[in-house]
């Protein structure tokens, strides 16, 4: 009798697991969101502990060079402040000229700062998790950028977290332009190269476009998800497709290589997102 009851229980559990595969996408996303929000506090605990340890180790290691570091940072700050003043003047002049020509369009997007709290649990995906979610105005399919360029786009968003597919993930596709030549193409992730660096690939570049290694690749702004002229990375190698119709180029994604702890998610200025 007990054995029969046990078998029934196991059968019910197996059916429940199988049913999980047939649930609508929205439903599984909601379950996943609840699970993510439940586990996030545990993750934060470890993250904070790890950061404190690192900070402690850094301070012990850097005690000797602290004065030197301080001097260098002060110099750098003065230099950056001077540069900022020049750029502010240029921006104002640019806006004035654009408005005179009737081209000026006020910036529609605002940036939500978010902290990277985790990376993917398995190596099959190139993704990171942010500590901002729906409650902070982050929604799916939004560009994520850092000071080094384009990081990727948001994929799954729960109340308090957002998963970001990095530009080096094959599922992340961006319409791009080679900055020097203006040639258009489509950038998608290509995993990790033999040196262990994440790479992306730009396809469908015109066969006669004079692109070469070292050229900067930026977002084209087509499609509406990614803002225009955000640096994606630099071309490492250029190839011609077998059929000879197009060229393709391997790209080192700048922001993924130098991934910071803090990134920015694009959102509408009023915080309301429009679904595409």
């Amino acid at each position, binding site marked *: 009798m007990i054995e029969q009851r*046990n078998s029934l229980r*196991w059968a019910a*559990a197996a059916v429940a*697991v199988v049913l*999980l*595969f047939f*649930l609508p996408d929205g439903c*599984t996303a909601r*379950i*996943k969101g609840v*699970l*993510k929000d439940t*586990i996030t506090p*545990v*993750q934060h*605990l*470890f*993250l904070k502990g*790890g950061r404190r340890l690192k900070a402690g180790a850094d301070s012990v290691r850097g005690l000797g060079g602290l004065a030197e570091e301080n001097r260098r940072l002060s110099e750098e700050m003065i230099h950056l402040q001077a540069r900022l003043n020049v750029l502010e003047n240029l921006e104002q002049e640019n806006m004035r000229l654009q408005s005179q020509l009737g081209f000026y369009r006020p910036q529609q997007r605002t940036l939500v700062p978010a902290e990277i709290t*985790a*990376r*993917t*649990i*398995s*190596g*099959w*995906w190139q*993704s990171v*998790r942010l500590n901002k979610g729906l409650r902070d105005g982050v929604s799916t399919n939004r560009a994520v950028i850092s000071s080094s360029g384009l990081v990727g786009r948001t*994929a*799954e968003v729960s109340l308090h977290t957002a*998963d970001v*597919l990095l530009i080096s993930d*094959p*599922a992340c596709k961006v319409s791009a332009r080679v900055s020097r030549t203006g040639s258009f193409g489509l950038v998608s992730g290509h*995993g*990790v190269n033999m040196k*262990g*660096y994440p790479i992306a690939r730009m396809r469908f570049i015109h066969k006669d476009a004079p692109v070469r290694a070292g050229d900067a690749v930026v977002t084209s702004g087509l499609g509406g998800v990614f803002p225009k002229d955000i640096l994606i990375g630099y071309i490492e190698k250029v190839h011609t497709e077998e059929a000879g119709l197009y060229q393709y180029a391997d790209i080192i994604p700048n922001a993924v290589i130098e991934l910071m702890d803090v990134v920015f998610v694009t959102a509408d200025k009023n915080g309301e997102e429009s679904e595409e």
Partner: protein
Amino acid sequence: MSGLFIILTLMTAGAVQSLLPEWRMLSPLKPPLLLSLIVYFSLHTSRSRALCAAVVAGFIHDTFCPAPLGISIPFFVLMAMNVILVRKEVFSDRLLTYIIFGAVGAVLQIVYFAVVLGVTGLRPIWVGALTLRLLGSLLAGALICPLVYLALTQIRRLITKERKRV
């Protein structure tokens, strides 16, 4: 081992596994903490507890990556069932057991995901990268599983000592 201990350990392992840096040279690979825990629980608890732990591990794994929810549950359950099946024949509480189970389990995990993700078209599978990943997982499993065993044995010993003291 209580159910609560198992769930908390799995949650912690999931959180730690996602925070640990990946081994990029191994196409990239994460230390298989969840898998090691399933091996440990399958060798040390009852069949039903080990299978429940496998289901929970599957949920946690899928929560921490963009995979569809439930995709890794069959692997963890099959892994637990296999370890339970052979534990009477091979089990001795020695490091070598964990090295072998860890290495084999990690390789099987890569094979399972390569087949499932490749067949469903969720991920492109490149042969070179897959070979590198298999080699890496063999090493990672053989290294991490005994470490998890040692850590858990120590934690359980401490808990038992504390209980006796109380």
